[in-house]
């Protein structure tokens, strides 16, 4: 472990976020937890500085730092920007949410400190190049998440959500750590590169399969893939809505980033023709393809029967993991680029949909689908944007969600996984049904109350900020696609 100061130059955005965390805590202490604007402002400024730093110094080559434990490359850069963006938006979203900032709440300032920590952890997850760092960053994110889930600590549901999250998390972490130890046992290395070198003999056999499955259990929990998804609806429903918005985007995306780097660096080699191949004869892509099929089908089927908008979105977010795994299992750069593209789009539309829930949560009586009745006439703008997010989640043109799905299906088709692609498109049709239940409530049912709902100005502005890319990326998406392609080049090309 040798640390050099030159490493710090590559670790700027992460360092700033770490510092932001400390400053948020400090600011909250100094103001005795009375002036929440201090930690809130600190988080916004910190995130902005970090974002500027990241944008000013995009990595030009793959660079391993902190004793080869962390790799800063284009792939890390892509996720850095995504996580910083998510943190910035969700911080703004939380600031005017009653569930976080309501008068009856406590320690509101700490929320922002935790958000900074979460962002730091997620960025490191996407950069980990060593199973030790993998476990550490995953735990950093998990522990922060547990606290966030139980943030409304006098709410029964919030506490229940936190407890469920902790129990599931603890078990799956333990299983994953065991899997990682098997990797160490098989190869004698902790770095991904080392594991790859150790496995290239192709002698993994049963032990390797078990190790992979165990690691999958830990990651599957983080991304809520079937059968590790059971906590998701309860946590999304119980936790404060802004926290649910964070969970549905941030940690899930970080889980994908971690998974992609681990599997594609440690377990995949590219032969000289630039095509990717398995190191060993353990057919983990098949296992993942089945998980993908199960995840999307189960997520969609369960979503049909939900009456709570939040639970519906929770199950739909499970289904989306299934779609994204489709791009992961095909072992091609195109497949991974499709996943990256989709993650980006998914973050925008999911946060958008949750933002509507947050915005209405402050004003409308409940979160059942029926509570949205007549919204299209009471709040035409908000309803129209909700509709846009919903059709984007369904994957209809001209929205970003369609393009994302198109690339995923195209990747599956290119690899000849037609059965998975057919299952994917049929699932999209199913998802139309339940997304349109919300649209039906908003537009087809007459409102019980008349007059405007009256939403926070900040929420309206944020909604527009999220709706614009949802639409624009559906018509002109080249820049994002090229960014995704480019981000992968160092990961796959440089090995």
């Amino acid at each position, binding site marked *: 472990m040798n640390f050099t100061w030159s490493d710090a130059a590559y670790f700027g955005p992460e360092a700033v976020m770490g510092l932001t965390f400390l400053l948020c805590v400090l600011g909250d202490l100094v103001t005795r937890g009375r002036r929440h604007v201090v930690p809130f402002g600190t988080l916004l400024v910190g995130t902005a500085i970090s974002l500027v730093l990241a944008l000013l110094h995009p990595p030009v080559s793959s660079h391993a730092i902190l004793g080869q434990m962390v790799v800063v490359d284009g792939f890390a850069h892509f996720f850095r920007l995504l996580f910083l963006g998510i943190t910035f938006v969700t911080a703004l979203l939380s600031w005017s949410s009653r569930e976080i900032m309501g008068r009856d709440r406590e320690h509101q300032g700490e929320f922002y400190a935790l958000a900074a920590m979460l962002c730091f952890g997620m960025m490191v997850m996407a950069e980990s190049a060593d199973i030790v760092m993998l476990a550490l960053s995953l735990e950093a994110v998990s522990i922060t998440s547990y606290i966030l889930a139980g943030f409304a600590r006098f709410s029964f549901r919030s506490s229940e959500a936190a407890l469920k999250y902790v129990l599931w998390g603890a078990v799956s972490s333990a299983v994953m750590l065991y899997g990682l130890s098997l990797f160490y046992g098989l190869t004698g290395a902790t770095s991904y590169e080392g594991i790859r070198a150790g496995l290239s003999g192709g002698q993994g056999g049963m032990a390797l399969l078990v190790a992979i499955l165990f690691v999958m259990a830990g990651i599957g929990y983080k991304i809520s893939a079937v059968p590790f998804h059971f906590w998701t609806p309860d946590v999304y429903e119980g936790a404060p809505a802004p926290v649910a918005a964070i969970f549905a985007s941030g940690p899930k995306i970080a889980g994908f980033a971690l998974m992609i780097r681990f599997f594609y660096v440690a377990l995949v080699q590219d032969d000289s023709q630039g095509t990717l191949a398995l190191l060993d004869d353990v057919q983990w892509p098949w296992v993942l393809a089945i998980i993908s099929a199960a995840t999307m089908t189960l997520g969609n089927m369960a979503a049909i029967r939900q009456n709570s908008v939040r639970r519906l979105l929770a199950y739909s977010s499970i289904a989306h993991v299934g779609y994204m795994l489709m791009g992961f299992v095909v072992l091609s750069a195109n497949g991974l680029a499709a996943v990256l593209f989709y993650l980006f789009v998914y973050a925008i539309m999911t946060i958008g949909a949750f933002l509507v829930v947050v915005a209405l949560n402050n004003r409308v009586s409940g979160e059942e689908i029926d509570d949205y009745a007549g919204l299209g*006439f009471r709040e035409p703008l908000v309803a129209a944007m909700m509709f846009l997010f919903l*059709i984007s989640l369904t994957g*209809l*043109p*001209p929205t970003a969600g*369609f393009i994302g799905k*198109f690339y995923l*299906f*195209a990747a599956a*088709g*290119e690899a000849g996984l*037609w059965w998975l*692609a*057919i299952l994917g*498109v*049929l699932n*999209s*049709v199913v998802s*139309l*049904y339940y997304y*349109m239940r919300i649209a*039906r409530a908003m*537009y*087809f049912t007459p409102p019980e109350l008349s007059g405007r709902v009256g939403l926070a100005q900040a929420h309206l502005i944020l909604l527009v900020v999220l709706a614009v890319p949802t639409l624009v990326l559906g018509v*002109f*998406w*080249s820049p994002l*696609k*090229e960014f995704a*392609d480019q981000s992968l080049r160092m990961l796959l090309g440089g090995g």
Partner: protein
Amino acid sequence: MLELADGGSSSLLTWMTFFPLLGAVVISLLPSRNQNLHRWTALGFSLVPLVLAVKLFMVFDRSTSDVQLWTQVDWIRTFHIQYFVGVDGISVTMVLLTALLCAVCVVASWGIQRATKGYFALFLLLETGMMGVFVSLDFFLFYVFWEVMLLPMYFLIGVWGGPRKEYAAIKFFLYTLAGSVLMLLVMIALYFNVNDPSTGGHTFNMLHMMAQANHGEWLLDPTIRHILFLGLFIGFAIKVPIVPFHTWLPDAHVEAPTAVSVILAGVLLKMGTYGILRICYPILPDAAAWFAYPLAILGAVNIIYGAMCAMAQTDMKKLVAYSSVSHMGYVLLGMAVFNEAGITGAVLQMFNHGTITAMLFLMVGVIYDRAHHREINGFGGLGTSMPKYTTVFSLALFAALGLPGLSGFVGEALVFVGAFEVYRVVTIVSVLGIILGAAYVLWMLQRVFLGPLNEKYADTPDINRRELITVLPIAALVIFLGVFPPPIINMIKVSLLNLIAQIPG
């Protein structure tokens, strides 16, 4: 093989496609209280494509099968997606029909009271979607327009529809989406297996896909080609709709407001058969030949089954809806035989059914606005109280049953002439459809307009001027094309001959 006409580049079609979209944006920015403003703005924005359609009719070159008035611009270069539009003889009649019916339907929607702003904005958005489908020559672009059209349709049925509107709207949406996602997968499969002859890369360009020499090795396997054909075909069949995928149609028609029913039957159904002619046939001609016989049988089933269902209906609108199923059967039968008479009859019937069924739905709308029901048995003797209405409705009904001298006859006659050469038995069975058609039409005519006057409707006002404005231009067209069809036949003929020349056997 389809080629681009030299020097045929033009922005006419782009204007026709996107002008209504501009109108939708303008309307959504208008104040919501002034309903008349919405109506007149919508009319203005739908008249422009109609005027451009007249221009299109004048400048269209009838002597070539090449793609005319095209525009080709790169859209997403890295994925070889282009903004590529143009017309040939197959699509030009559909573009004209769309422009005409949309303008008519805006007038027919004058009576809409609820949320006019949203209604007309969505209506114009729908027009953009439909136009886009008919002019697209890039498969990706085609798919985008195909889907974009679903959203306004869903709302137009779901918000402004009848009592069971919610059920009808989601059923329409789910059925069509289920079909189109299959199309999406076939599109992806074609993309990866068709080479752009100039660059060697993949392509969504339909013209490249139609050239068999560009097909990759995987795409040469007959089994694969049959599967791809079926995938596309089911997507289009749901739209046509071909029995047994037709159950969304009566529901959607009955619940939709009048103008939306007109668009549904007049234009949307044609997208199905248009898709088969534009995509299935030229890209996979050998598979088309292989499936010809089942296609003809499906056509006959549509004709007979649709007519029998129509006869059993007590709701006028449902009767007209099922008559559409029956009439689209003629189109299918004509398409299944690859000779000049059959396929010309099919495309002619597509156009004529669009105008005739539009008249029928408009007329049903007129009586519904007055009586607030559509029960066939709930009227009687309207001929004495509403003579003008009776005249126009009877004209439409006679056109629907294929009376010589009206446009419906020409298409059906050509279809039967063409089909008889190839599939005798199927054709003979199908001809029974004409008799069944006469039966349900005349029986309805008798129950509604003849007999003793139902006193309840003795004072019903006759058809008014606005309603006449919507229907008379179409009626004139129906009579004119019944007596003198060459204006349409000349437009479509060369392209269709070129198309059937591709199909082996």
